[in-house]
């Protein structure tokens, strides 16, 4: 984890602003660092989508939690943010029929449209892999035994395969299943069952009230301090006008790092 003070120290050195009040915390450093965090999230999201992400680098943001699906095999992860205590940034993986602690945990009785975070159940590992598919693939795979998540093999416990897709908001006035919903297929197996979801939590955003608290951390590893500082410097340098040395240098540096991340 990185603290605000650490990041500011690196930036101030590049700006030659140590001890100076030319750049202010809330006015300059905090927005620039927030922008850098946002940019890092975009870059890392892209890297993860291309299977280039480093689990080690994001360990402080990585969670695995057990959820209970609704009657459509869905989990409304955005609606469950208050229960989790943080928002979900990126789903890393979904595991159907997970092994749990305690073993053989069962779904609770709930209304059809309700999906739950199950804080009383921990992930013990394994489970079945769940392939990510798109909304367009869902009807294609339904009756195709060779595509994951199909219903053809759903009744065979040894042959069933799983897939998930992000349906977002599929609610109606009579069936409100929440927002940010992901659904796990085949529905005949996954409805009202336990699934494990591995995800990255949304990093803490700095603001005027929390940036200097000892409990506030930027949840990226120390190895990313230089990268975040470079990106933050780029945003700060915009105020100096285009064409400054700092702006060009920071952008080039950041781009090289970005390339390294995704290629």
């Amino acid at each position, binding site marked *: 984890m990185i603290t605000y003070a650490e990041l500011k120290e690196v930036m101030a050195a590049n700006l030659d602003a140590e001890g100076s009040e030319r750049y202010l915390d809330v006015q300059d450093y905090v927005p620039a660092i927030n922008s850098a965090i946002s940019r890092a999230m975009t870059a890392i999201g892209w890297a993860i989508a291309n*299977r280039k992400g480093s689990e080690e680098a994001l360990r402080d943001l990585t969670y695995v939690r057990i959820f209970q699906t609704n009657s459509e095999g869905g989990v409304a992860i955005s609606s469950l943010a208050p229960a989790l205590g943080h928002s979900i940034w990126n789903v890393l*993986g979904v595991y159907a029929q997970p092994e749990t602690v305690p073993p053989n945990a069962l779904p609770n009785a709930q209304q059809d449209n309700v999906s739950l975070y199950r804080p009383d159940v921990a992930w013990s590992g394994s489970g079945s*892999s*769940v*392939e*990510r598919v798109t909304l*367009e693939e869902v009807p294609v795979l339904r009756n195709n*035994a*060779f*595509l*994951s998540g199909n219903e*053809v*093999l759903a009744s*065979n416990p*040894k*042959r069933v*395969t799983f897939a998930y897709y992000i349906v977002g908001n599929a609610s109606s006035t009579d069936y409100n299943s929440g927002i940010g919903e992901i659904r796990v297929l085949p529905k005949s197996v996954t409805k009202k069952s336990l699934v494990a979801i591995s995800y990255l939590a949304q990093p803490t955003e700095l603001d005027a009230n929390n940036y200097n608290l000892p409990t506030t951390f930027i949840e990226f590893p120390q190895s990313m301090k230089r990268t975040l500082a470079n990106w933050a410097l780029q945003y700060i340098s915009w105020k100096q006008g285009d064409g400054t040395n700092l702006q060009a240098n920071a952008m080039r540096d950041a781009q090289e790092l970005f390339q390294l991340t995704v290629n």
Partner: protein
Amino acid sequence: MPTYDQITDDIMVAMGYTHDDSLRNKEAVLYNVKLGVDKLKSQQLQKNKEIGDYRRNSDMVSTFIVPITHNDVADEVVSDFDSSYFDLPTAIYSLDHDGGVSFIRYLRNEIPFGCPPAVALTPFTGASLASIHTFYQSAYQRPQSKRPYFARAKAKIGEAYKDRVYLFGVSTEIKHLLVGLYAAPDYTEIDPDEEIGLPPHLLMPLKQMVIDLERWALQIPQERLKNDGRDFEPNQIVRTERQMSLNNPIQLDN
């Protein structure tokens, strides 16, 4: 002997299908394993039939007890013509002279110990629906309880086809038969933990066959971003299937 799962897992790793978003999933590979197993088994069965060594096929015979239907046009529900029959409990290999049916016998479990067992008594002779009349026209070959015949045909029941075995000369008092089949399990019914049922020396040709099928699948041009199917990029090299020697074990009866 390895199971379907073990063969499939080996090839999944060999092909680099180790992530959940791999181009081919385990079920797709399992299907190719089944194709390879079926091909090699039918080669084995045919070859051993030709050289007259039926005992080499013994470990591929599965025995079943099947119920017989004695259909009468007077029945309330007429599903077939007036006949006695049973439906095959599994798909079987298509071999010369209905060779997929190894034997059919009366099911008689009450034979005193020391007497010939049922499987050693009264063989059912293979025929076809088109030729069965010739046996009825011959006094010495006419079907009867001591000289039963069978003939296979597809029967359309509703929207589905049944793999039906018609029986001739069988008394209506007979309710069950003992049959031995060279079973070729349906893809959807394969138990991944089941042994593949091939002799060890055929594992290498099997692996080679499946990897060839997988390689071929990977050589199909990639999907275009338009999502309209698969297409070639301009000047893309068209790859052809690997050439194979006539002496390759896959080509031979092993």
